[in-house]
């Protein structure tokens, strides 16, 4: 008898439903699998046979044929095991065929019949809902991510034996999870990476607030150990809370990359910090069957590139297009795959090779060495950055003030800063309601002229500076964009002189450009 079950395989960020047909006929005992299978799918044969036997079901001697369709897409992963096993059980008449109508099966089998974790279950659950499935069977470790998808019922079993019993009797469904409540709970709790734990650093905090408010990419320059990485980490905590849609999307990306722990849901904005030896593929994504890279894993959050000048220029060059589009498209012979990649870039570097310039009591680098180090950053790389600041070591008095456990020295918490950032984001939302952008940093030159609203004397100041420092036109517009955000933070309708001056200070790097 031919049985039909369903599973899914990942295709880019989405998933494709796979029909699995199982036929047990007469003939010499054999187990055949067809349908453009990768070797891990092919190996399902041994896993399924053994798992069934160890769960107490012996395959009758005969010819078992398993076909996975559509036959023209390559099937990867170990998530088909469960569907194949169920197909066999149906063929054997151990499960009623009508009970598995509209059910999607996902799971890898252990030899003992245990149903094990699979990557990308969330993406498959979404695809299942889209394709009209009513319920989905997932491994225990993937339950939570499946439960946040609305409109599909989730079933889970520890092993095959449990599954058989349940399908014979009554099926229990898991409760749906209200993700927005979880997000609120998670984000209201103070984490280790909270600005309340960053003492002093007023200058840096101000610049970071500006950067996050307008989604301006930022560069932190500072001596080793001054807190650049800590602050970069904290930046994610002042970004607005994830919306349920975003959380779903981000969890999906992490799920398909295998970065989720058992029953984890991403409720906070991601922070990714790839090392400068990372390859292009690991940064932007790729592979035969494309997988998302660091830029997609940091979607909706922060991509932190520590030791920025050490990154090979070629690798940074590949970031340019995704940064403009907010997504990365990878082309393969059998199709194009698009992954979201809308992140905020935070870069950091030392001021000189040893890291202590201009403190000449520690820095022994020659001007020549310093210039050579800084020149690695020149031109095209610095174009990606809107704001550049120096991070100084916190003063010892600041640190002592905090160790006193006296409330007087308490720093503003991330939550308080986040509320201001959310306010500025709202201003931008209203400003750009007729455009297809959401942040000040995304304005093109025409939009700058239309929306920036720069006062006359501010324009004059910028013009003077432009002439004096022989600035590029790109920098000119970048300064106005940052100034617009500063004015938004300070609740000013017009971009005034003060905002422009601060934006110039945040942008310029003498010795590097301009």
């Amino acid at each position, binding site marked *: 008898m031919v049985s039909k079950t369903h599973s899914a395989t990942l295709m880019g960020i989405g998933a494709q439903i796979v029909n699995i047909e199982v036929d047990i006929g007469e003939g010499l005992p054999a187990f055949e699998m067809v349908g453009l299978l990768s070797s891990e799918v092919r190996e399902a044969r041994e896993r399924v046979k053994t798992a069934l036997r160890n769960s107490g079901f012996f395959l009758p001697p005969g010819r078992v044929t398993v076909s996975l369709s559509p036959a023209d897409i390559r099937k990867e992963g170990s998530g088909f095991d469960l569907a194949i096993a169920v197909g066999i059980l149906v063929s054997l008449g151990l499960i009623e065929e009508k009970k598995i109508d509209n059910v999607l099966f996902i799971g890898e089998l252990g030899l003992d019949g245990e149903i094990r974790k699979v990557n990308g279950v969330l993406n498959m659950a979404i695809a299942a809902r889209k394709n009209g499935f009513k319920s989905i069977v997932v491994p225990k470790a993937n339950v939570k991510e499946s439960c946040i998808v609305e409109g599909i019922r989730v079933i889970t079993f520890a092993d095959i034996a449990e599954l058989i019993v349940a399908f014979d009797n009554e099926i229990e469904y898991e409760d749906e999870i209200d993700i927005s409540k979880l997000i609120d709970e998670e984000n209201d709790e103070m984490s280790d990476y909270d600005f309340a734990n960053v003492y002093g650093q007023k*200058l840096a905090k101000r610049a970071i607030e500006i950067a996050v408010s307008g989604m301006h990419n930022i560069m932190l*320059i500072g001596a080793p150990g001054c807190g650049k990485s800590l602050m970069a980490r904290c930046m994610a905590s002042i970004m607005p809370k994830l919306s349920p849609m975003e959380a779903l999307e981000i969890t999906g990306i992490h799920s398909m990359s295998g970065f989720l722990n058992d029953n984890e849901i991403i409720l906070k904005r991601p922070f990714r910090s790839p090392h400068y030896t990372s390859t292009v593929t690991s940064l932007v994504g790729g592979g035969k069957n494309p997988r998302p890279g660091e830029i997609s894993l940091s979607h909706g959050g922060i991509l932190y590139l520590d030791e920025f000048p050490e990154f090979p220029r070629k690798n940074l060059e590949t970031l340019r297009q995704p940064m403009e589009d907010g997504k990365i498209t990878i082309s393969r012979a059998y199709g194009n795959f698009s992954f979201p990649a809308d992140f905020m870039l935070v870069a950091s570097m030392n001021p000189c090779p040893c890291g202590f*310039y*201009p403190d*000449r009591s520690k820095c022994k680098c020659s001007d020549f060495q310093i210039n050579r180090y800084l020149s690695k950053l020149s031109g095209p790389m610095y174009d990606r950055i809107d704001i550049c*600041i120096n991070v100084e070591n916190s*003063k010892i008095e600041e640190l002592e003030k905090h160790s006193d456990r006296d409330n007087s020295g308490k720093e503003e918490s991330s939550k308080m800063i986040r509320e201001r950032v959310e306010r500025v984001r709202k201003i931008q939302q209203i400003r750009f309601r007729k455009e297809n952008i959401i942040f000040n940093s995304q304005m093109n030159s025409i939009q700058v002229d239309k929306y920036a609203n720069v006062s006359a004397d501010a324009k004059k100041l910028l013009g003077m500076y432009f002439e004096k420092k022989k600035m590029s036109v790109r920098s000119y517009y970048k300064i106005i964009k940052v100034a617009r955000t500063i004015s938004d933070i300070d609740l000013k309708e017009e971009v005034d002189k003060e905002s422009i*001056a*601060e934006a*110039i200070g945040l942008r310029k790097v003498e010795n590097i450009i301009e």
Partner: protein
Amino acid sequence: MDEKIYWIWLSGIDDMWSKKMEVLFDYFTCASEIYEANENTLLSIVDDYEKAGKKGMFNEKDVKNILDKNKSRRTLEKNIRIMEKENIKITYKDSSDFPSRLKYLNIPVFALYYSGELPSGKNVAVIGARGCTDYGKKYAKIVGENLSKGNINVISGMARGIDTHGMLGALKAGGKVYGVLGCGVNICYPAENMEMYEALKKRGGIISEFPPDSKPLAWHFPLRNRIISGLSDCICVIEARKKSGSLITVAYALGEGKEVFALPGRVDDALSVGCNELIRDGANIVFDGREIVFSLTGNEIKKVEKDIFKEMNLDDEQKKILGILTSRPQSIEEISRKSNIEITHIRSVLLGLDMLDLIAEVAKDYYVLN
């Protein structure tokens, strides 16, 4: 052949340098005599030399190098070619234009290659650390400028840092500047000083003891320093660490009984320790170079005093910041802390001052007084 040619031949011989020449000129009077000398004469010098117990400096190998005329002629021809092409001249101990005091140094100088001209009149060496601070750069420039205004030539090693900035100051004021190199005159070292190297050929000179195409080897530099001190009437150290190469030059100068000037710095500043110790040990203090002019020529240069506050119509905040800034780089946070100006506002005040060229940003978010 012209005697000059013999000198170019002599200095181009492998391993030949001043110490060896010193031995040879105990026996010979001029370079042509050495060229004509036969093996026996030369070997007897080695003998004599070793009998006197001074072993090693002049030996059989050197005799072989001197006698290997084929090889040394090739070097000679190459050097003459370069000298003609690059307009490099040579002067030696018997020439009328040879700076005579170089003959009486501890390790005498026998011949000099130069591009441009040789220094005449009063000369001052402005020297110091290569990795210097902005304070050092600023004062090297000022001292160089004032020396030029007092018609005094500036000499240094054309190294990075203080040397370069002292020369820049002097060039800016229109004075003559001489660079003594540790490599061949036709090589610009360090390469990024190309512009200045070219300027020096026209507005002073490039001088070296080493034949054209010599590489800047480490052992050349202490030797080069003795020429710097030898050519100078006094030495001015702008910045030096506790153990600095500049102090070698100072030691040479003291040995020759020359005056040493040093720019004072903060006591705890690593780059001023060398200078401060010199002052403690009796060196003269230099503030801006006018003291040196006075000490050498008796002339006084007037200092141009400007009241920028009045002239530029500065407001209170700007004045406050000018009062806080020094030549030591200070971060914006530090300036904000000291001036009590809000972090959100201070960039605007600083930009105003920057536009007036009163302050400068030396590294990201670090400012100094201009």
